[in-house]
């Protein structure tokens, strides 16, 4: 935790205050997020207390669950359920929330063994009752809470964790390429709620990973064993796949894994607050999970809201329209910053509330030139730091901020958020000043001159130079930003073509190095993910979001069997990254982290534009307990720290 934050806590705490009291709120400055301060219950920042600790003895359930011949709520809850302190007020049960498909990951964040605190650094136990690292960080012992159950009442035990890792993650048919985080991982079951992870190397941040990607560790064995060749008969599986319409069992399970955001794609038992009730092409219906493990300070089982209807709204425009006219109870994912005025209009006319959060993206755009591109001339050009600096300095970030972000974003390079332990202001500003003369000078220096005098620079050998940018227009305002960026680049004599492509295609092309230039949004900027996934700064992963050095990453991932050996300074990054993830020495860790970011700031391996941008989060007026400002992004699974289970309808 940042010192600032601790101090603030100290100020706020008075002796004799019950920790549960709602009167006292901790406020943390998440970076100078344009003044926005996040006010959350103090209790959210600590390991959640349990009913017994707070002396809550009687529990109640929603009328929705009455007369469903379910066992009484006490039996459905864990032996000692976690208590979540609601933001503003204790809620009342009931209601159906209207949202869109894309927002269901935000309304129903996954409930993992660990969860993330609203300071966006601290990892808190969730399904875990306790955990402990040994001193060298190679051994992590976790104990699950007593009496946890899947949404179908089946007990949740270490069995499920072992299955998820040994039979899925480490199964070659299921995961042809083992994810780096599981390589060499060894799980030992102590009893049905205690297990031990043995890592080949120290993994001080493994809990971050488990908190941020819970699905990998929680696949219900009792459900999936019927589909798994190690447990069930091949023929039977084949038939099941036939009727379910999947080519084979791995395809079937990957469907739920690949789309990590939507673990419900296959209707398997869950630990989340809601479970699928019915699936139709147009609509996913959810109902409350009767075995959910959380209660509020009055002993009411969460969540408050009974059911969710997630409509399939394919066109972003329509999502915006629905949100701005009060047809949705919660919307965030596809609401562009530029539409805030429209939404605000809805605030005055359609009974909605527009909360402006801040995207945790270090930069809304990470512009990437593929330094491993097949074309020899291009790759040498992109590998030339002067070229990347020129591209960066040719961009007028302040104008972008004014035109696209109403001046409320922060012009910056791709780097971590200011609240981070690894942040230094110059990381954000290096080579980010708008200086076309300097840019042109660099381009001339490289030997890109306008030989034929058509106002467009040619390559040093006189052959024409065209840059092609292909990207997906998703999450952040990429298309409109690129229109500007391209015009800036044209202004310094570069011929640029751009085209929108589909996400799936971007994924395939990016990791097979087929994209010349592309654009993504730079997340992994908080202390939750940066230490374990410094992916935008170090070539060590193949992903849709990382197209600038796929071959070097491949080399890293396959221990030099495939891909290309990176040049020394890049190799150095990889070594630092390994150390960052594994060192147990906090100061050294921060030092290494800063080394990585500093190197990136100098070399501009990926170009940023404007970051920490305003993110509209629309809620209907009847929806209560939603934080007014927060960080928005993948690192923290969007709403995971803000406890959507405590949202309720004010009847």
């Amino acid at each position, binding site marked *: 935790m940042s010192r600032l934050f601790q101090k603030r806590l100290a100020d706020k705490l008075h002796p004799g205050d019950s920790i549960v009291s709602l009167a006292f709120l901790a406020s943390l400055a998440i970076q100078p997020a344009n003044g926005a301060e996040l006010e959350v219950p103090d209790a959210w920042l600590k390991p959640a207390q349990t009913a017994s600790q707070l002396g809550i003895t009687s529990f109640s359930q929603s009328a929705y669950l009455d007369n469903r011949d379910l066992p009484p709520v006490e039996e459905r809850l864990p032996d000692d359920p976690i208590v979540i302190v609601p933001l503003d007020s204790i809620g009342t049960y009931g209601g159906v929330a209207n949202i869109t498909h894309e927002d269901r990951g935000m309304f129903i964040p996954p409930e993992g063994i660990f969860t993330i605190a609203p300071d966006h650094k601290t990892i808190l136990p969730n399904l875990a009752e306790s955990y402990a690292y040994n001193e060298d960080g190679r051994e992590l012992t976790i104990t699950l809470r007593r009496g946890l159950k899947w949404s179908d009442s089946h007990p949740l035990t270490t069995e499920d964790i072992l299955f998820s890792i040994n039979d899925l993650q480490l199964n070659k048919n299921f995961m042809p390429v083992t994810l780096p985080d599981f390589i060499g991982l060894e799980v030992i079951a102590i009893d049905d709620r205690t297990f031990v992870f043995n890592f080949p190397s120290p993994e001080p941040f493994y809990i971050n990973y488990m908190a941020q990607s819970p699905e990998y560790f929680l696949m219900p064995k009792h459900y999936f064993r019927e589909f798994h060749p190690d447990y069930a008969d091949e023929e039977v599986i084949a038939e099941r796949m036939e009727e379910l319409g999947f080519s084979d069992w791995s395809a079937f399970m990957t469907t739920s894994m690949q789309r990590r955001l939507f673990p419900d794609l296959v209707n398997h038992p869950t630990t989340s607050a809601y479970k699928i009730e019915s699936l139709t092409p147009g609509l996913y219906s959810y109902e409350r999970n009767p075995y959910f493990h959380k209660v509020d300070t009055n002993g009411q089982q969460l969540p408050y809201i009974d059911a969710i209807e997630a409509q399939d709204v394919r066109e972003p*425009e*329509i999502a*915006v*329209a629905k949100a*701005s006219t009060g047809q949705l109870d919660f919307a965030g994912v596809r609401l562009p910053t*530029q*539409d*805030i*005025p*429209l939404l*605000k*209009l809805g605030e*005055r006319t359609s009974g909605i509330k527009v909360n402006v959060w801040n995207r945790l993206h270090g930069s809304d755009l990470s512009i990437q030139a593929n330094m491993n591109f097949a074309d020899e001339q291009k790759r040498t050009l992109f590998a030339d730091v002067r070229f990347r600096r020129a591209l960066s300095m040719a961009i007028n970030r302040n*104008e972008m901020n*004014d*035109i696209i972000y*109403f*001046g409320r974003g922060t012009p910056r390079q791709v780097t971590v958020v200011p609240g981070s332990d690894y942040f230094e202001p110059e990381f954000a500003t290096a080579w980010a000043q708008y200086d076309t003369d300097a840019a042109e000078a660099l381009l001339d220096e490289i030997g890109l001159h306008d030989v034929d005098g058509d106002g467009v620079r040619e390559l040093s050998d006189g052959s024409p130079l*065209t840059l*092609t940018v*292909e990207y997906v227009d998703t999450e952040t305002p990429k298309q*409109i930003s690129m*229109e*500007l960026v*391209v*015009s800036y680049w*044209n202004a310094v004599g570069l011929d640029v*073509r*751009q*085209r*929108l*492509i589909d996400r799936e295609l971007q994924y395939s092309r990016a990791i097979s190095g087929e994209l*010349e230039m592309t654009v993504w949004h730079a997340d992994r900027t908080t202390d939750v993910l940066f230490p374990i996934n410094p992916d935008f700064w170090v070539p060590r992963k193949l992903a849709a979001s990382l197209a600038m050095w796929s071959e070097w990453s491949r080399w890293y991932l396959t221990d030099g069997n495939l891909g290309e050996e990176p040049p020394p300074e890049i190799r150095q990054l990889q070594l630092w990254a390994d150390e960052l993830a594994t060192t147990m020495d906090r100061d050294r860790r921060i030092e290494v982290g800063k080394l990585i970011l500093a190197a990136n700031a100098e070399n501009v391996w990926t170009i940023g534009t404007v970051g920490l941008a305003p993110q509209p989060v629309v809620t209907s007026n009847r929806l209560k307990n939603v934080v007014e400002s927060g960080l928005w992004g993948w690192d923290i699974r969007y709403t995971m720290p803000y406890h959507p289970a405590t949202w309720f309808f004010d009847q």
Partner: protein
Amino acid sequence: MSELRELTPGQLAWLKFRRHRLAMIAAGSLIFLYTIAIFCEFISPYTPEQRNSRAINAPPMDVRFFDAEGQFNFRPFVYDLELTINPDTWMREYEEDASTAYPIRFFTRGEPYEFWGLFEAERHLFSVDPNGPGYIHWFGTDSLGRDVFSRVLYGARVSLSIGVVGVGLTLFLGVLLGGFAGYLGGIFDSAVQRMTEVLQSIPTLPLWMALSAALPAAWSPITTYFGVTIILSLFGWTTLARQVRGRFLAMREEDFVVAARLIGANDQRVVFRHMLPSFSSHIITTATLAVPAMILGETALSFLGIGLRAPVVSWGVLLQQAQNYQVIVMTPWLLLPGAFIVVTVIAFNLLGDGLRDAADPYSSLRQQ
């Protein structure tokens, strides 16, 4: 006994066409539009990519003759706009500042441009306060502060030319294939027949989409332009081919063709010297009516983002940026290109009708 005049077919046709008032109006407006398209660089006050960061999503400005005191000025002028972003509504609000007026000047120097990519020029038909802070956005500006009026004008060039070029190709294919099919008959005929049948039974839009989705991203705007055009005309020729074929079948037997054959004119000559002219008027009409389909086709593709790409500005591209609910509520002026499309398409249709009536020797002359 009433007075009677002798008329040549040409005169008769022109007479009929003139009677077709709507067609006349249509022809007029098309001439107007195409003139604009040809001289867009000169007529538009700004270049399509020129940004005015002081006017983002600015509404159309009123061009005034009367100033605040109600004084009439001979030279029209616009007031300066004060931009403020409302902190609560996040709305960009534009206040007219009556204290500073910018008179509209004609044939002023402005943003330099390449006329038809041939020679440098910087004269614009009109503008305000060329090197000062003043600006005029007659149709308002888009989300990047670009002048919608100028963009519509540049868009006109692309959209209107795509129609013509595309139809040119269509005609070539249609007449060639249809003509020979009808004239030669036999295997060639049935082959072409089958082909048209097939092409006509495929929903065109999906095909267009499939093909233009396959256009490489690295293609230059101009190549893409031609790529799209070709794709559009690839399936347009069938209708024409059918008609041409039909006419040929009918005509093959007619005396003047037989005669031409008898005097030993070869097929090609017979087709192109004797048969084609005999219904060129029909072809012209069909062509005219085919243009709108092209224009709308381009619009549709661009709308789906698989047609033309920026920096090429076509009406379709412009609409693609204005395709959402937000625009209808907040910045309706971005839909203006749509109005231009509507006008153009209607004009072409009316013109086509007019030509058809005029060309048809059996249509009567009657009072209207």
